[in-house]
């Protein structure tokens, strides 16, 4: 591999595609979606035996645009890791990233039209669980004629999907890469999600979730929800290093201190507003609840070892030292349960001051670990020279 290709070249996007499944999708809540569509992107080529496919599972606010630069000049959310010569090497693997149902980037969700009506689903969209996302992803797998994923990779909520696949569809994947994730949310995690939902629901423009009918959007509430969430994805140290007490506008030495805006305030407001423009408030509520409901051991009498006993794939688990949303301790519980279940697992605890967001950001050791692991996957599954 040439060194120059690692960080400069981006994935060649098979431009955004959508597929409508007319087959019913039975949801965990009991509702049946008679049809649903998924928007997705793929990178690289599926090989003749179909053995080089990787599924990328996005997290709370992610979408299908994981790599490369799209027609709107937007760089994918995991472009640092997916592309030619990158750790998830699109010269070697066929990489698939769908936007999941309930989200708001093209796949069926609260902002889509409800069947046989002229209205959007809005608040009526059924509640979802991680198993529903995975079930819907099996439809996409079939559509793409993939029998078995070489690997399923995801960070945060994405890692939960990878674990769910491993336990419930053991024959459908060879490797699960679980990054900055958890077997279930802590009380503190749920509490942060509740504050975020309350922020949205308190916005007068929310209209109990039917804001599209009212031709408005609860942007203030959604921005506030994102600001809270965003803060929990960062570490105190990273914020301090980036902003300290720098002043964005105004003068701390003047008599008009109330006009002062700190850099960190400006940054956070900007992030909140930017997010409120691109995300759907109902989707945010729905997906944060998905996170709250997730509990890998729930169907196994809370015995995660018994859950992982079902799996046949190998695991790579990665955590980040300063992540306090899904701390290294959460990942260690996953690893301990896997070892107790006698499953193959490797675990990396990456030193980073970037908090939970570290899983999205460039980091030499994280890149090296993922690259080494996937090279070995390629070597064993379809004999690509290392």
């Amino acid at each position: 591999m040439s060194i120059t290709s690692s960080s400069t070249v981006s994935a060649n996007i098979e431009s955004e595609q959508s597929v409508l499944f007319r087959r019913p999708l039975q949801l965990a809540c009991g509702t049946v979606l008679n049809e649903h569509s998924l928007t997705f992107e793929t990178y690289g080529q599926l090989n003749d035996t179909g053995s080089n496919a990787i599924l990328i599972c996005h997290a709370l606010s992610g979408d299908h645009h994981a790599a490369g630069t799209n027609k709107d000049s937007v760089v994918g959310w995991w472009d640092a890791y997916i592309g030619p010569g990158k750790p998830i090497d699109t010269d070697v693997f066929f990489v698939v990233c769908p936007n999941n149902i309930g989200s708001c980037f093209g796949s069926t969700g609260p902002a889509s039209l409800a069947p046989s009506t002229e209205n959007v689903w809005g608040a009526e969209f059924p509640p979802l669980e991680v198993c529903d996302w995975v079930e819907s992803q099996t439809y996409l797998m079939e559509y793409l004629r993939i029998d078995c994923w070489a690997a399923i990779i995801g960070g945060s909520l994405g890692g939960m999907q990878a674990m769910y696949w491993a336990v419930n569809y053991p024959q459908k994947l060879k490797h699960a890469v679980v990054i900055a994730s958890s077997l279930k949310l802590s009380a503190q995690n749920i509490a942060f999600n509740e504050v975020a939902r309350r922020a949205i629901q308190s916005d007068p423009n929310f209209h109990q979730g039917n804001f599209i009918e009212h031709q408005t959007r609860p942007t203030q509430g959604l921005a506030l929800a994102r600001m809270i969430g965003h803060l929990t994805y960062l570490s105190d140290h990273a914020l301090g290093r980036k902003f300290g007490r720098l002043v964005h506008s105004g003068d701390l030495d003047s008599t008009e201190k109330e006009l002062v805006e700190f850099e960190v305030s400006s940054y956070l407001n900007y992030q909140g507003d930017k997010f409120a423009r691109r995300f759907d408030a109902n989707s945010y509520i729905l997906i944060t609840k998905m996170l709250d409901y997730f509990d890998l051991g729930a169907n196994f009498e809370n015995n995660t070892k018994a859950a992982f006993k079902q799996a046949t794939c190998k695991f790579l688990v990665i955590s980040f030292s300063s992540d306090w949303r899904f701390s290294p301790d959460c990942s260690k519980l996953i690893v301990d349960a896997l070892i107790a279940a006698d499953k193959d697992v490797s675990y990396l605890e990456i030193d980073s001051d970037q908090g939970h967001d570290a899983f999205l950001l460039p980091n030499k050791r994280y890149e090296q670990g993922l690259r080494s692991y996937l090279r070995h996957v390629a070597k064993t599954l379809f004999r690509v020279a290392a």
Partner: protein
Amino acid sequence: MTDINGIIEAWVEKSSRVLDLGCGDGQLLESLKASHQVHGYGLEIDSESINHCISRGLNVIEQDLNEGLGNFANNSFDSVLMTQTLQTLRFPHLALDEMLRIGRQCIVTFPNFGHWRTRGYLGFRGRMPVTKQLAYQWYDTPNIHFFTYKDFEVLCAERNINVVNRVFVGGRTNDFGLDTVWPNLFAHTAVYNLSK
């Protein structure tokens, strides 16, 4: 020179569960996997070594032995191994107890400080030994405990640890069998098989 991995392999059962504490680049685990089809896990903290293990497709867990092994259940492994690492731990005696709690048997190797070279280094030069087995200056070394095989056996007796088997490994003198006659003088490395 005697093959230490070979001695260890003879004591490990086929298809057993093995935990290698301080597994380095995974050489021993890889060899046990190939020859004995063991299901093994290595614990390591050095990032380069961890990456070697991952490249070899071995199970490696990033975990600091000094922070304990409380996450491993009682009797959850057939063999718990520790090669050339005991002397680097903050509390070697507690680590031994933990190894015996987790594993049915434990295999430990360590540098024997009673070897004539180290004795000579200290005795004649009056300096702390820097040898092939202990290749560090005193102020910058991972080896924070120095002990002889006799010291180790006193510890085992005190803690009711059963010495199932032991092999002493010497250098060139090996050929004359001196490491078996006077192991504390001629063995640079001691290999122990322990049980409760």
